[in-house]
């Protein structure tokens, strides 16, 4: 997605939660879609490895 599109989008984004399945049906052009998925494994902190003492 180029910067111009990005900026335009930022202006109209409303940051509220919506259940999936409620959006209006739309025609998809798969060629242009960014389908990246990002996850991150939460790091374990020392407080969480202390479970036997605590």
């Amino acid at each position, binding site marked *: *997605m180029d910067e111009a599109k*990005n900026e335009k*989008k*930022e202006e109209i*984004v*409303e*940051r*509220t*939660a*919506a*259940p*999936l*399945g409620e*959006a209006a*049906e*739309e025609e*998809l052009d*798969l*060629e*242009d*879609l*960014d*389908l*990246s*998925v*990002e*996850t*991150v*494994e*939460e*790091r*374990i*902190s*020392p*407080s*969480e*490895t*202390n*479970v*036997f*003492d*605590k």
Partner: protein
Amino acid sequence: MIQRSSFPISLAFVPQGHWTQPHLAIPCLKAWLEARGFDDVEQMDLSVEAFDHFLTPRSLERARDRVHARMGLARFESATLPLSEMRAWRAASESAASADALIAGVEDAKRVLRGTDGGGARGAEDAGFWDPDRYVPAVRTLYHGLRLVSAAHYPSELTPHNFTMGYANDRSEEVRAATEDEEQNPFIAFYREEVLPRLVERRPKLLGLSVLYGSQLVPAMTLGRLVKEALPDCHVTMGGGFLAYIGDKVMDAQILADCFDSIIFHEGESPLEALAEALRSGEEDLAGVGSLAWWDRRPDFAASNGGPRAVRNTPAHPIKLDDAPAPSFDGLPLEKYFSPALVVPYDVNRGCYYGECTFCTLPTVIGPGYRTRSADTIARHVVELRDRYASTHFNFITDCMPPGMIQDLPERLIERDAGITWWADARIEPKAYSEEGAKRLYESGCRKLLFGFESAVKRILKMMMKGQSLKSVVEVARNCTEADISVTFYAMVGFPTETREEARETLRFIEEHSDIVREVSLQTFHIDEVAKTYKEPEQFGIEVLPAPGDLALYHDYEAERGMTQEEAAEMFEEMMQAFREKLPLFSGDNIFYFMQKSHYFLHLANGETPDSFAARCAERTRARAARGAEDDLEVRPGLVAVPLAFSYSDAVRTLGDPLARAARPDFLTGRFVADAERVAEERLPPLERKERVLLYDPGQAEFVELRDGGRRVLEALLRAGGLGAFLDAQRARGASEESLHRVRGFAAELHRLGVLHRAADELTPAARVETPNRPGAERGGSTVRS
């Protein structure tokens, strides 16, 4: 027995402690007082009550509304997101995506952990606790619920493992201020609504608060202050491990004097009895109560500034442990612990028979000397407790059992046909944990032992004066493993002068022995004011730096050689990462079994072996990684999406950095490390704006970050009914094979994460592993999801 006139006493374990089983201190005190004739002793576990209270739909609704009012996502629309705002933004994002689902799912999640969800057609056998596909999402739901509660009291953080605020625990002014901060302190409202009305009605003459950990200091002072306001005639005393460390300093802090009346040092039984007796007799001069420090509020004895004067009495004699009664758990809310079976804690001894380790400050916490109950007494008490509380699971509270006890106790338990399972801490004793000895321990019910391993480097072990060889370590761990007793190692990183290479040597040793080491409780080294490393720093090649707080216990230090504290924190990360790759119990979300005290043990107690459980964990991780883009994939119901202005995963990664972590209060004492916030702010760059979508999946209780394109494909997949139908429709519309291939890759990734699923996933191989002795199982059975 001497009968005393009615003298109501209340004892409370204050938040925060672990939530799977009762803590032992107050049950020991209750039993002692009752045996000495005090017939009106109430005990409360306010920690588990608080968890239960916060994790209700009503509390989570309040938290959601409060987060929305205090820090809605609309507040974070700047060009960049600095570290100072990152935690708040993350909390706001998670709250927006997950709050409603958490409110809807929290009660069911609690039922799963408590084994009261009813399971499927076969009741307890099918209870979700035993099914990882139901257990893990339930645990996650509760963790996320606490994150929502924490967000409502930002910057406070309440987890099953810790409680910290924006205030430092090592400064009395901050501790006192924290007790009155309604924005940050979630316990003020909890006490007012749930605890004070009960206490006001009961009107105890003496309230004892148990403070074992730094995380309990502010909650204890908060309750003490509220009780002193509501019931001025009630004497509030505090005691426990953490106050044994800093109690003297607390008594120098007159600003805290309106939160409590006295502190009991070390072992509580005898001093608490003497205090109760003195108060019952109307005594105002408490100088005769051993091991007590107290505020003398009599006008004639005021301090020079007119305030109460701190008085420190001489130590009491320790009790003869073998004469002490078995702990009493009567009156505790046993049904509220997050565990399907009660694991009964029981103190077999106090102190350490070895007592040489240079890092250990145990005598400061428990008091000097080593005392034990006899094996006969222990076995008799165990049977009594088993019958009284209808539980066959025990956690023997000991720092280590001497070789004689390791031999005698199994014999006595077997003789009495105790029929229990148990776990305990232990010291490497090759003669006691011989092949035969380990088998006998297993026969007596031992299913897990936790050994103080610490390091695989001889030089470090010598400095620690551990008195154990690596050969013995391997021999003992192997004997236990071969007897089907699971072995956990306590390990330490950052002992003074330890180098990175030496820490990696310890890591390699554990990796090479991952067939006999199932769990590692890894800790970074800390210096406290009673440790040998503090008193004789030159012996360890370190310079201890001053700690400015008036309640400071822990100190930073500079080492002549070896890792700095910052490098030790980095090495902790490196080692944990390696454990997550090499130890099946630490892989993926199996780590929740390790993080929930006693839960892995309960699987061992119910028929799993260390090998079968490890295989089950490894298979679960493998099966998840092997998921693909099958045509019958469907979108899991209930997904919620929130558009974000920054990358959620970048924020989580940044906040998990050791530098960012150091900017938060230390988990042991709640202190803020000097300059850590500034250093982290300087070295961790702010996040640049990136439009993202945060997805919350209530089925897995997981957050997943997508681009808006991914969200749109998920919407279309939902309408199409499945992946195959979606791809067919797109192909018919002329989509390229390359784009369809990308969709398959996207779908496979979401399948691995659980956002997409197929009916076949509901019966994973992991869930079908047989565990023959599950409660309610008449014979070997399989887990069938309801």
